[in-house]
């Protein structure tokens, strides 16, 4: 049984349907990516999975339980973490306070302290600035913080929405390397990206979204070599 199963999901903003019946699965230990142009419905899909939006129809199962009517804060407690598009760190809190909020539902002080120091060794710059207001970090550093914060709940599934958005090529590479590292340590990831090249090269499974529908699905490597995908998403003629 898949860890996450999305069945015929429809999501609407008022009368405008942004997601028009999509289905996909994420298996334990897999990296699955959703790619697609701006406005395709990727963010809407993730926000619906994590409970911030309610679907108009369809079904979301996490770990065998139906969650499309579960409040967002309870979905987190089941082990589904979501690092949102645009990072959304808490700007007026320190880096450490941001990390601790990621562990809001945990009670094991020792484990939390250990995970904070793991976060600092994964991203040393965060450790150096731990008492600084998170709003003062650069875009790339904020992205690191957002990912580290999402990991603080020891998620069974990590959802990342455009982690490389607006970053310099060097920063982008560092973030992608981190995702590769997480993958090899066994983290299950649902990755939304506009940087299709990078996303497909590390994903086990990929889905191409076009205006609210899945246009194409396949193994990451296969999609990467698919002529249609190369033309539309990798900018090749």
């Amino acid at each position, binding site marked *: 049984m898949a860890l996450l199963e999305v069945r015929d999901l429809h999501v609407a903003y008022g009368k405008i349907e942004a997601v028009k019946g999509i289905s996909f699965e994420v298996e334990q230990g897999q990296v699955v990516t959703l790619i697609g142009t701006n406005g395709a419905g990727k963010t809407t899909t993730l926000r619906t999975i994590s409970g*911030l939006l309610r679907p108009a129809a369809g079904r979301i199962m996490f770990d065998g339980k139906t969650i499309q009517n579960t409040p967002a*804060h309870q979905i987190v407690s089941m082990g589904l973490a*979501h690092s949102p598009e645009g990072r959304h760190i808490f700007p007026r809190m320190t880096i450490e306070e941001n990390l601790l*909020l990621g562990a809001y*539902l945990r009670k094991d002080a020792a484990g939390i302290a250990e995970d904070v120091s793991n976060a600092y060794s994964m991203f040393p710059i965060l450790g150096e600035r731990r008492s600084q207001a998170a709003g003062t970090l650069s875009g790339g550093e904020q992205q690191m913080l957002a990912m580290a914060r999402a990991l603080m709940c020891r998620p069974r599934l990590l959802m990342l929405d455009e982690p490389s958005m607006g970053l310099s090529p060097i920063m982008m590479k560092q973030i992608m390397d981190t995702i590769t590292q997480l993958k090899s340590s066994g983290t299950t990831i649902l990755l939304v990206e506009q940087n299709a090249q990078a996303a497909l090269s590390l994903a086990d499974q990929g889905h191409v979204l076009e205006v609210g529908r899945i246009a194409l699905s396949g193994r990451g490597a296969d999609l990467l070599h698919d002529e249609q995908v190369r033309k539309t998403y990798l900018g090749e003629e």
Partner: protein
Amino acid sequence: MTTTVFLQLVTNGIAQGAMYGLIAVGYTMVYGIIQLINFAHGEFFMFGGFGALAVYLWIPPVQHLPLLAALPIMLVGGMIASVVIAVLAERFAYRPLRNAPRLAPLITAIGVSILLQQLVFLWYPQPGGGKVQVGVNAPVQFPTFAGKPFHLGGVLIQRANLLTVIVAFLCMAYLAYFVAKTRTGRAMQATAQDPDTARLMGINTDKVIVVAFVLGAAFAAVASITYGLRFGQVSYDMGFSAGLKAFTAAVLGGIGNIYGAMVGGLVLGIAEQVTTGVLANYHATQQWGTAWQDVWAFLLLIIVLLVRPQGLLGERVADRA
């Protein structure tokens, strides 16, 4: 005008301002989290005074205690009255409109405010006679301290004023601790900064909103008792003007900022007392004294907002969409 008279005005202003500040905290916390100007907050304040008075009048042994010993018991009654009303208003009037256009909860708040005023106006039993009298128009007497005021230099310090400043300080110290150090306090900060992301951290933001209403109402109950002690009365419509002033204080201090609420309250209280006191002191300006008190208060608000639109301690709200 002598220095002593001036200091006397400042002293009175501090007590009045501390009371505004205690009420303003409730406006500012709720606004900071759900961007609602809770116009009924003045009535939560009024309920606190009546709740405290009810305990005093309806449990006779309390009346025989020294007032200082009776106050904690009255405070419990006042807090229960304010908090219950606040929780009910949040649950049944504001929460159903959480995703409605902003004007809807605002108008609802005005409706709740009128409803609560009328409830007390029509139903609050007159003391003495056990009979419920319709339309308690007159203010209801509130117990006051019997002892003489303290002298400090030439300045008179009323016992109730001193108590007001002490409890305001204790309340603010507790709030500072709560927000910075407790788990719920941090959840509250997170919810104010970014509610959706707070939910992604596992924070039950509905619960956080209730906590903000509860804390605000509890502080308003404290303020209401200090009002009763200082003026010797409470009335069904006392929440209107005190609420308006406290809201002004919250905006003056920077709405959303809890310390700003107290700073705004103190600045407003002092300015109000000093301007009216000074003007009333001279024959030529006498007519612009006490009667014009509210004019000076709002003039101050306008001037401060022209110079610092975000309020005295407010943050520029650039990071909030």
